[in-house]
């Protein structure tokens, strides 16, 4: 084993610098992230993230479990948007299963249900991001408003799949349960209630002068840098790149819906530049409205009757390998699966969007202040469960 020591920041004695260990227990590192900061007064000279405090060996687990058994574990990766994690994994397995003759393909009704819960969960995830970002910046109230509205979505999920956080709802080839009889009505109630709320939150927090001061022109992540760092999702769109897998490589039935891909803009009125914290945050606020749009289109359509899960004998994908990605709320969630034709994968790697986003923190945070570090972590919207897996 190679000799190695953990890389810790060293400061010269009698220098003006100070090493501050932020985390793993800290109110606003969104879990158990540890940051080692070299500070000159309030100014951050260097920030090194240390991760792994929430490592649960997901990939090792997966090698010893059959494909349907892995789905509950994907719930625990990004527990804020577990539906999308289920979906991403199932998409990859279904793509492999497509070569299997006995696999009948995902039924239409299941696709609609998937889009419904996926978009609802996207709203829930962005709401949480909005709330915690407000709290990081110091406004406590938006946090509870966000939780109040997220609660409604969780109640909807509780009805359809029986769980509030770890759903295990989307299965290989479909979904686990059909929706309860009056569920669509509840969804419509929620959408009607929620849509004006976004404007209220924008007036309360997004347009607030103090909030703008704290976030514009802070930690500018431009498009080239974002792509080089492999950053995707709202963080990339905040940098002005119009790239959304739902639009550009439509999977499931996203090509049937009409929605925009919100991107960041230079806004001289408030001084926002492409790729700063404010733009990254604003993209999420706009995306919630687009998700509402998609859900409305589903509600206005007739959801086809029929089975909710595909017919197949067993989940034994033919030998081969696949890398498939889907658009989770935090970016592109990729699954690299190597199969040898048995019920268990030989190798499963989850490429999480937060993992790549966090790796840019070290470069983003140079020369900023302690309070800005908090602003960056909030704006790239990380979930440690997904980073450490």
């Amino acid at each position, binding site marked *: 084993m190679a000799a190695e020591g953990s890389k810790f920041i060293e400061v010269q004695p009698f220098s003006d610098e100070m090493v501050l260990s932020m985390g793993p227990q800290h109110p606003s590192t969104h879990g158990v992230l540890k940051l080692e900061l070299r500070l000159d007064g309030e100014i951050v000279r260097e920030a090194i993230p240390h991760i792994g405090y929430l490592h649960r060996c997901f990939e090792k687990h997966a090698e010893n*479990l059959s494909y*349907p*058994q*892995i*789905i*509950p*574990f994907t*719930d625990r990766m990004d527990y804020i948007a577990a539906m999308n994690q289920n979906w991403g994994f199932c998409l990859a397995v279904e793509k492999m299963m497509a070569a299997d003759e006995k696999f009948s393909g995902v039924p239409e009704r299941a696709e609609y249900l998937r889009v419904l819960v996926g978009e609802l969960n996207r709203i829930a995830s962005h709401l949480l991001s909005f709330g915690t970002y407000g709290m990081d910046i110091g406004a406590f*109230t938006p946090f509870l*408003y966000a939780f*109040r509205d997220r*609660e409604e979505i969780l*109640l909807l999920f*509780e*009805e359809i*799949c*029986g*769980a509030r956080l*770890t759903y*295990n709802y989307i299965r290989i080839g479909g979904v*686990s*349960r059909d929706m*309860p009889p*009056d569920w669509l009505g*509840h969804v419509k109630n929620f959408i009607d209630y929620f849509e004006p709320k976004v404007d*209220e939150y924008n*007036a*309360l*927090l997004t*347009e*607030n*002068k*103090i909030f703008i001061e704290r976030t514009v022109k802070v930690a500018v992540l431009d498009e080239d840098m974002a792509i080089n760092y492999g950053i995707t999702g709202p963080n990339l769109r905040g940098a002005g790149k119009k790239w959304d897998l739902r639009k550009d490589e439509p999977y499931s039935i996203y090509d049937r819906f009409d929605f925009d891909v919100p991107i960041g803009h230079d806004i001289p009125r408030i001084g926002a530049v492409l790729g700063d914290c404010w733009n990254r945050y604003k993209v999420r606020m706009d995306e919630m409205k687009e998700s509402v749009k998609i859900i409305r289109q589903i509600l206005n359509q007739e959801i086809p009757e029929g089975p909710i899960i595909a017919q197949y004998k067993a989940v034994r994908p033919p030998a081969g390998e696949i890398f498939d990605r889907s658009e989770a709320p935090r970016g592109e969630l990729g699954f690299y699966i190597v199969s040898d034709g048995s019920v268990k994968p030989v190798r499963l790697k989850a490429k999480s969007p937060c993992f790549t986003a966090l790796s840019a923190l070290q470069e983003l945070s140079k020369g900023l202040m302690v309070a800005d570090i908090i602003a960056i972590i909030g704006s790239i919207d990380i979930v440690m469960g997904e980073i450490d897996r």
Partner: protein
Amino acid sequence: MVGYISNIYVGVYTVLVGMVITFRQMLKPRVTHQYPYQYEFERKDNYREIPIGYRGQLHNRVEDCIVCNKCVQICPVDCIYIDSRKPSGGRGAKLWESMNVVHLKDRKQIIGIVEGNTKKIEPDTEITISQTVPAGKTRKVSSNDVDRIVERKKVTFYMDRFDIDMALCMYCGLCTEVCPTECLTMVDTLQGIEYSEFDRASLNYSFVKPELYK
């Protein structure tokens, strides 16, 4: 200078807008509830209640269990432990014949042999259930009270141990889906979500009923 003054104006303006929004919120009704007191956790039409099919604590009706081990195989975290043995008498020996489970609409079950058609329930008829387990009597229920009738396979194993470690369980519900007799369920009432213990060992539930096999 214009920028300076407009900065002050925007600052004051947005702060006041925020304050008006929060003040407006103060006049609205509260959404939080006083958890155990304000709320009767009974099943109603109001969907704030625990919904039907909520994935709560696991429960096994061992009277129905045929010890098929499917739940053990599917469990991703290996939290179900089953020990079983064959009855003496060699191949083909069974503890009891296949029976029916009558699920009533008030969420009770009667186990026994249903006479007549079990697939289709005619309204306003009487269903006779003989040899109910464990009492062994004959009962009659109106078919209007019956939700569904499930066939229960013959039992060919003694169950010596059926333990579920709820401290390990991850509530994925896979075991309830593979269960052929629907005896392993997740409790969707208040008992299913409120079962805190002071000792972790007491979260290991044992469902086995030795008196069933006497």
